[in-house]
């Protein structure tokens, strides 16, 4: 079946370094790909999305890269800060007939080391 998964379950980075979180997906027909951040005890928060016809999108300190050839999505966080410690999920959206379907990946825990 369709799935969205991640390569690394836990990522530890030094404060100030750049972080790269990876995700593999299998549904090439998805319309959008999204990254969410979930802190302990909270619901996921939207970080950034990218449309399927794009290969790069930048936000504030974050960049999402989409490689459709190998069905790979990554989230780059520049100058990682302690507040970035959280679990990060990639998700893909399929849209059709006015409906949306979100499929979430496994998740990567990012630990920022002081």
């Amino acid at each position, binding site marked *: 079946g369709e799935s969205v998964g991640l390569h690394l379950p836990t990522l530890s980075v030094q404060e100030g370094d750049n972080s790269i979180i990876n995700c593999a997906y299998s549904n090439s027909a998805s319309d*959008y790909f*999204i990254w969410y951040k979930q802190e302990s*005890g*909270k*619901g*996921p*928060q*939207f970080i950034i*999305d990218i449309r399927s016809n794009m290969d790069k999108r930048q936000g504030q300190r974050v960049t999402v890269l989409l490689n459709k050839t190998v069905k790979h999505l990554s989230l780059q966080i520049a100058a990682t800060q302690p507040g970035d410690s959280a679990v990060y*999920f990639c998700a893909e*959206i399929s*849209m059709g007939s*006015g*409906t*949306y*379907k*979100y*499929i*979430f*990946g*496994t*998740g990567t825990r990012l630990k920022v080391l002081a």
Partner: protein
Amino acid sequence: SAVISQKPSRDICQRGTSLTIQCQVDSQVTMMFWYRQQPGQSLTLIATANQGSEATYESGFVIDKFPISRPNLTFSTLTVSNLSPEDSSIYLCSAPWGAGTEAFFGQGTRLTVV
């Protein structure tokens, strides 16, 4: 943006009983989603709830176990019925906003069945 208020934030229930979770959105939204999240794991979609129609359930989830109400465009409830310890999990509601790629989440309900 949208704010979703979910309650209760946590509950401990006896097996065989039911728990109803409420989600209130501060804006009108067409779709609302209900997810289950096992601790340390990703989000699994239970069902999609549209106002004025029956909820659409994902494979493995049935209406008798997870009845959903959607009486208007700002409110939804999920009931987890005939509770067993296997139902212990975090339950989240969500609603897409704007173009639909940014979904907002409630803070989650942590259910423990004893």
